[in-house]
């Protein structure tokens, strides 16, 4: 461990060098921070602007698009909430997302348990099959799915989204949970089995409590995914009564036509819950969304 000894000796020197170069360092550090901060403004300003706009009136907006809400009003919110189907879209999104997430978690944690801890014929092959489905893009299934859902009389019902959302989330979710369950010591499960627990009981009483953290990650991030899904919702839903927020919002734009501030209020109402959930649960959401890329 020669290296660490060297480091310990060299460190004070390094600090000395830094002090000499302080002025130029200060400038470059200032520039870096300024750059990062302007990028941050670029990332969030459209949302801030949308919120500002929703508190103004149309004449105000046209007079000065970049202006602040000097006489903030909630009229736009009241108007959109009372006269448009936005509440229905909200409710639909909530029902579809919650139902899908519950099914996703139930099915994939069961499957993950099966794949990780139970031995049955074709275990490895079936796992590989499920994994390969992870790479099937939704686009290629879109048309046959439409034909299938039509035959099942599900088009324009919430089931038309719940089943495909569940199906497309299961492969990844199962892989994620499986690696978690695989790390549970075999002895623990064997002990329970020897004590007379059935496999089902082991799953509910032992496995489920242990995998709570990964289920939480999965819950939040799958919820956000379902909440935002657009392509399936666009193709499988047609009526106002059934539409979810992403497609409903576009109808809203057509409905309020040139009433920009009202639309801004609608958009803000649709965004605020997501942003709040994100700020509270960002660790879970980021973990879930980037898990595929990081584990590679």
């Amino acid at each position, binding site marked *: 461990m020669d290296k660490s000894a060297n*480091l310990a000796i060299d460190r004070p020197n390094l600090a000395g060098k830094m002090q000499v170069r302080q002025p130029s360092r200060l400038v470059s550090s200032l520039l870096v921070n300024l750059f990062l901060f302007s990028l941050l403004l670029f990332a969030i300003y459209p949302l801030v602007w949308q919120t500002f706009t929703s508190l103004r009136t149309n004449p105000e907006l046209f007079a000065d698009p970049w202006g602040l809400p000097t006489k903030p009003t909630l009229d736009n919110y009241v108007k959109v909430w009372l006269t448009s189907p936005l509440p229905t879209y909200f409710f639909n999104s909530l029902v579809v997302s919650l139902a899908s997430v519950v099914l996703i978690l139930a099915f994939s944690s069961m499957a993950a348990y099966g794949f990780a801890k139970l031995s049955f014929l074709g275990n490895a092959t079936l796992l590989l099959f499920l994994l390969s489905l992870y790479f099937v*893009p939704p*686009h290629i299934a879109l*048309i046959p799915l439409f034909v299938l859902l039509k035959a099942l009389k599900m088009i324009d019902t919430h089931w038309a989204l719940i089943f495909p959302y569940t199906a497309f989330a299961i492969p990844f979710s199962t892989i994620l949970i499986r690696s978690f369950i695989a790390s549970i010591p075999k002895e623990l499960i064997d002990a329970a089995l020897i004590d007379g627990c059935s496999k089902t009981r082991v799953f509910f009483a032992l496995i489920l409590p242990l995998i709570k953290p990964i289920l939480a990650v999965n819950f939040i991030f799958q919820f956000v995914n379902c909440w935002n899904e657009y392509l399936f919702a666009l193709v499988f839903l047609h009526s106002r009564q059934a539409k979810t927020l992403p497609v409903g919002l576009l109808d809203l734009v057509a409905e309020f036509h040139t009433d920009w501030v009202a639309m801004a209020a609608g958009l803000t109402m*649709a965004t605020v819950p997501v942003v709040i959930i994100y700020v509270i649960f960002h660790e879970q959401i980021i973990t879930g969304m980037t898990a595929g890329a990081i584990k590679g």
Partner: protein
Amino acid sequence: MFFILPALAVTVGFIAYPAVMSAYYSFFDWDGLGGSREFVGLGNWARILSDPVIWESIAHNLVFILVAVFVQVPFAFAIALVLTRAKVFGRSIYRLAYFLPVILSVSVVGILWTWVYNPQFGLLNEFLKFIGLGSLARPWLGSSLTALPAVILATCWQVTGFYIVVFLSALAGIPEDIYDAAAMDGVNLWQLGAHITGPMLREVFAVLVAIAIISSLKRFDLVYVMTQGGPVHSTEVLATYLFKNAFLAYELGYASTISFLLFLLTVSLVVFQLRSMRSVETVEY
């Protein structure tokens, strides 16, 4: 076995079966409305070869890929490196804010950016007027010359945060003594990224480039929300053209063939990319 049955049933029914049927439909001329379903063999593929819009769409998908691979990913790496190594105040706030657009619904992002480009009150035109470049103001999405770059900029806005955050966690996994050694050798940030951490994260780069290619080929939502592929196909991509053929023109057979083309393109590009990026020796640490 009982435990995996529900998952298997749902995925077979709603992914595997439709994917196979898609290949089957591609041999037919079919409107999906109960009209005649006529076997045309490879006729749909011949039609693809002679359809100029297909080639235009592929070209636009390519532009999306190039921007994603050569702008978004390297830019995200640079930002992540600066955020990790430079003296930055409020590091976690930056991470939070940069990722925010990623979790927004595409319709919100699409509508919002249509307003940024709006000729009457759009933020972009107003900004140009403010800095004295008012002559450049134009209806960005209305002209076939500027519509594609405009949509691509909106895409960059939404997705770059994803790459930044992945690079951030990858960089956090690099042992501190490597940075110490680099600092002792007087390495600056640029050299650090280009010669040390960059090569160390080759695997992460390979995966992110694959993701960039796949998502650029699948690109549908933002384009459809903002321009519907117009004006005159100037922002058309394979996915929007597929959607229009299937659900506006009711050419289900032809649209299925396009979806297959999309799938084949994705697989071949990603396999080629992963082979060429992973074959090079990776740095161990």
